[in-house]
């Protein structure tokens, strides 16, 4: 999963065509580290969706503007608008269930 920064957020997420999943994470967050590999797998399974991760320590402004108050938080953007918010680490099957229709 590629990293995205504050400076590139508009270009790579908001103006990107179609769906983009953003993983808000940090080094010190254990559950974030656990779901990282799961998201890497999902990235391979949903070629039509762009997956990126955003480090909340390095990019606090983006995290604040989307009111990310707990991590991991996953936001799915569709043509720049948030269409799904998932807070907390979920097992892969549950993630697929939550994301299923959106990503289909």
């Amino acid at each position, binding site marked *: 999963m590629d990293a995205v920064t504050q400076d590139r957020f508009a270009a790579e997420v908001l103006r990107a065509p179609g769906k983009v999943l953003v993983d808000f994470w940090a080094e010190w967050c254990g559950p974030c580290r656990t779901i990282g590999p799961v998201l890497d797998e999902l990235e391979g399974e949903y070629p039509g969706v762009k997956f990126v991760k955003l480090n909340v320590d390095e990019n606090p402004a983006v995290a604040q503007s989307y009111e990310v*108050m707990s991590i991991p938080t996953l936001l799915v953007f569709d043509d720049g608008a948030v269409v799904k918010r998932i*807070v*907390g*680490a979920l*097992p892969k*099957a549950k993630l697929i269930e939550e994301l299923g229709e959106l990503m289909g």
Partner: protein
Amino acid sequence: MFDIVLPQDSKPLAGTFDVLIVGAGPGGMTAAIYCARGRLSTVVLERNTAGGQMALTERIENYPGFPEGISGFDLTEKMKKQAGQFGADLREITTVAAMEPAGDRRWRIVTDEETLTAKAVVLAPGVEARNLGIPGEAEFLGRGVSYCATCDGALYRGKQVAVIGGGDSAVEEGLFLTKFADAVYVIHRRDQLRANKVAQERAFANPKMHFIWDSQPRVIRGEGKVEAVEYQNLKTGVVASLPVDGVFIYVGQAPNTAFLQKIVDLDEWGYIKTDPLLRTNQPGVFACGDARTTPIKQIAWAVGEGALAGIQAEKYIDLLGEPEAAAATESEATESEATEAAATESEATEAAAQSPISSEASGARGTPTGGRSAAHPGGEPTA
């Protein structure tokens, strides 16, 4: 060691193990180290991510071997690595839905993904934060409501937060929050703290810490995210509103034992009952850590219990594997196992069980991560 349940010509079935350990906190991981090092096939099932309450603790100062202190996250990583290098198989984000006897002296555990069986089970499911049960609490989870300062504190830079509670966790996590937040308001229903003296001294000396005494939160308000907490003074009845961006809740803990209710004996608060050798009322099922009826909730104590539970599981399996035990009826095997294990282990373990109890609590243990813990509401009060 022979697996007495399987047909002689078959390989071990997928999902069939010697020991299943429920929970990867310090107790469960220590049991895993002992079992895996004892060449038992060992799987650890963890609902969240490894470490339990320990992983959520910012700094641990009372666990031996780390004179400079160690972060809960780092200690978790070390324990994980140690269990892993002996071959324990840790499965995180795996919730146990049910546990039941599988016949042939095995236990079956159903997770959200698969069904596993084992000869012995070590229960180390730990505890989780209790909910306040007020309006707004569930609604704003992850959007201002949190049970884990260590997890979410860094997202409150330059903001104002409230901490609910007056015990070790409330005060120590509140102090941690002063690293990020401009102001931390501790709302407590009494007129003094229950926290340990070291934490109290640090809290009263910290200019960012403020105290709202004799008060109970009534509702968390906001639009899309937390904007205020309303609290009532219990002596005057007056309700006030405090503008905050976050509410961190530390009002006690409850054991994660709902899935065990009809399986093993629990005490009136839901903690798992065991004998001094950590055996539950079910043969082959042991318990350790914070979810057991235990005098203290400390990492050092959980680690000791994990060692005992792991060794007990190993001995139990050894006895199962003996031809006479295999031929005996279930109750006979269980009884002879119990007697023999008790005879060999009682000296060491009873010494452990009777050793002086420390109330030292400088490494206060946090509460589970917001996102996951919310799905599992708290139970009975623990204090």
